[in-house]
């Protein structure tokens, strides 16, 4: 990197506990969840909030009335009005996108202090009435000249089935109509990922997450929050320390008869938020902060969603590593978002395949095998949960802490996302 260019660093990161959707965070939409995470970040770092130049936020299920979640968070938390804000949406990679946008802005000299992160509340997904309803009711309701008769006529015009039954929200690809789990079922089949391998991966994810919680490792990045009438939520609620391959083996396939994906080896619908403080390195040091990590590179890619929807990281990770001048083997840690155990295992298989490298990446050697001891060391989305927009910021936070704890030199992140998108980033210790 050009030495005259300022470097952006991760100063700290904090997230709310992750809870199952329609649970403890039912009353909190993405804005409220985001406020909890950002407030906790400000609290934990003691940052002078007048120094914040911008908020960059990621989200997938955006509140229809206020889609610029970042700005709402900044205003509600009384950050200075000059702290500008925007919101990015790139499916499950939204959180990472927010962070890398912040890093790029700082490194280009556009800002010194940015809060980046993401939040999602599937519990608050808007249920929309059919467009035919809007088109029929709209003109009458919006017109000042509508008479009582107009409204009565409208009542007869509305078809109770076609116009009034709301569409059911689902994580389905718009272009293919396929549920993400169905796409992943096909990936499991095509890459020969067995049910046993998926269950073993899922059990390990839960055990690693449980160990991180029990050891207090997550205390530095998960902030307890108060909801409703003073109910305190301290920790992630989806992690099952006592699960086992045997227990997971009893679950029924969730997406296809005879399939291999179950609720146990897939990530659950989750509510939560995560926030990361990005600063120019010299500004951070001048303010007395000890930076935790920096970014060497990142890459975003797209593949055909009708083919292998969630294979993106297998293309993005080698690309980001190449930009960082590294091999996969050089990375001390590997953190891959676990949408489904089958998807991570498919990606790992691709990374380890010489044929894949030759025919898909135009390389002569495989990207590399990932040592299980370096992969998702404190669990992942299967065990912790996956609030879409927050996951990227959660992964950045966890890896930044690993790097700051001196446990690793570099970490490579990989995220798959709806629409056939893939994201990757390489982080380094500072």
């Amino acid at each position, binding site marked *: 990197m050009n030495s005259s260019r300022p470097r952006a660093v991760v100063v700290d990161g904090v997230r709310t506990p992750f809870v199952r959707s329609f649970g403890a965070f039912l009353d909190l939409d993405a804005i409220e969840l985001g406020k909890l995470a950002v407030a906790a970040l400000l609290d934990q770092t003691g940052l002078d909030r007048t120094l914040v130049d911008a908020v960059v936020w990621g989200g997938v299920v955006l509140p229809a009335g206020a889609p610029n979640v970042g700005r709402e968070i900044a205003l509600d938390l009384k950050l200075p009005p000059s702290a500008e804000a925007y919101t990015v949406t790139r499916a499950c990679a939204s959180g990472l996108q927010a962070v890398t946008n912040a890093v790029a802005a700082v490194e280009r000299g556009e800002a010194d202090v940015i809060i980046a992160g993401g939040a999602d509340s599937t519990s608050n997904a808007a249920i929309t009435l059919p467009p035919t309803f809007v088109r029929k009711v709209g003109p009458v309701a919006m017109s000042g000249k509508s008479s009582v008769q107009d409204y009565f006529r409208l009542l007869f015009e509305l078809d109770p089935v076609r116009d009034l039954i709301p569409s059911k929200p689902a994580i389905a690809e718009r272009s293919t109509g396929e549920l993400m789990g169905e796409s992943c079922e096909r*990936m499991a*089949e*095509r*890459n*020969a990922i067995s049910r046993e391998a998926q269950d073993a991966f899922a059990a390990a994810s839960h055990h690693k997450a449980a160990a991180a919680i029990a050891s207090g490792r997550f205390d530095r990045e998960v902030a307890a929050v108060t909801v409703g009438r003073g109910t305190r939520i301290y920790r992630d609620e989806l992690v099952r320390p006592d699960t086992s391959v045997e227990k997971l083996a009893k679950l029924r396939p969730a997406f296809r008869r005879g399939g291999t994906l179950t609720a146990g080896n897939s990530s659950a619908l989750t509510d939560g938020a995560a926030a990361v403080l990005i600063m120019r390195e010299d500004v951070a040091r001048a303010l007395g902060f000890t930076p935790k990590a920096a970014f060497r590179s990142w890459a975003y890619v797209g593949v*055909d969603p*009708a*083919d*292998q929807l969630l*294979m993106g990281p297998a293309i993005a990770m080698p690309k980001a590593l190449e930009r960082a001048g590294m091999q996969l083997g050089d990375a001390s840690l590997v953190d891959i978002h676990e949408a489904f155990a089958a998807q991570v295992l*498919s990606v790992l*298989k691709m990374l380890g*395949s*010489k*044929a*894949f490298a*030759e*025919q*898909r990446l135009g390389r002569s050697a495989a990207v590399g095998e990932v040592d299980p001891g370096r992969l998702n060391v404190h669990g992942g989305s299967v065990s912790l949960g996956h609030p879409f927009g927050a996951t990227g910021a959660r992964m950045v936070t966890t890896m930044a802490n690993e790097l700051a704890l001196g446990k690793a030199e570099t970490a490579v992140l990989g995220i798959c996302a709806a629409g056939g998108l893939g994201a990757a980033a390489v982080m380094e210790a500072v």
Partner: protein
Amino acid sequence: MSDFLVELGANPTASNLIKRLGLPLPMPQRLDRGKGPWPERPLEGRTVVVGAAVDQVQCFDVLAPALAEAGAAPFVQGPTGGAWSAAAEAWGRPVTPLEPGACPEGRIDALVFDATGAATVDDLRALFHFVQPRIGQLAKHGRVVLIGRDPAETTSLATGAARRSLLGFVKSLAKEIGGKGATANVITVAKGREAALAPTLRWLLSPRSAFVTGQELALRSKVKAPTTVPTTRPLEGKVVLVTGAARGIGEATAQALSREGAHVLCLDRPADAEPLAAVARAVGGTPVLADVTAPDAAATILAAAEAQGGLDVIVHNAGVTRDKTLAKMDDARWDLTLDINLRAVLELTEALAPHLREGGRVIALSSVAGIAGNFGQVNYTTSKAGVIGFVETAAPKLAKQGITVNGIAPGFIETRLTAAIPVATREAGRRLSALAQGGQPIDIAEAVTFLATPGSWGLSGTVLRVCGGAFLGA
């Protein structure tokens, strides 16, 4: 232009009734021609069975990744290690090994046999034993493709005979499976041209080759392989000239070419300015008003091409018929037919070829009549046979420039010209073919489009019959 029997056959009640009554009516299968631009994975969800006699496997290294990339998870009789397992891993398309003679469940969409090692009469039995037990399970619109070697490349009598016999195999098989709209063809691959197999096979296995059956596609061009062969929008950035584009086959060709990304220079004579403008507008191309026989035609074309940044492909489609028996033929009929159908092809190629950009293509329309002859068409068939001579002579000459030259010989195609033929002759023309029906202009357009793409680089100096397996001149 509709075909009554194809319509009737598509009506389940009618076709059932005709079968029950035992009426001696052929029930041609309505062909599946595909929709929209070339898809990325045309073989996704298709049952493809691949085989080779053991120790004859020469093209599996090309076949395996080609089929996997096209979306097939194939059933393979023969060794499934090496290239197959690598392709399965790279594309996530697991391969299912198949015992000799065994069939996968359900219908088979394509049978592909690698006969490149066929060297003896005994080797042909392996082909027979691969196809025979499975042919009954071939689906409607199914495909049989044999892959062989060039008979000219051997001095062994047995090998030469074995190689040539593949064409006989598909000629008859095409007639036996034509009733279900299925086709059978051979690809012969010259040594060193193996890489050209993938795009050719992909096209033959796709619905775009619906009216090509009982044919040989010989990959033996001398041009250099292109650096990249796009599988979708293969004509992106290409400028293609189509003569006679105002209607019929020319119009369909302009549409198909533009669908795959080409900018089409639509040329026709000034008298057809109106329909030509409509075609050019519809395909987003450039109308070029010129008479192909005029001395300034080439200059007009080059000026139009210049405005688009250059020229990549020439499609010589303009043609006329002026029928009379030779005894009654006058000079005007002779000259007009020869000038448009042959002289213009020669002169325009000579003038335009030096200006073609890298990877140029010249495609000329001949005719099955030019191969078989026709009553009252001495002038026409002379010109169309001349086109074949042009293709065969021009190909080696232009190879140095990286240009391929190929011909297309349409059989009976439903156009304005054929609609004017008397009923009895017309019916004979339609039914005397493996597919028992006439082709549509789009069938020729699809063949032209394939020959215009970078992936057709293995073919040069050949004349592809797009005739539904017509019995004439076969």
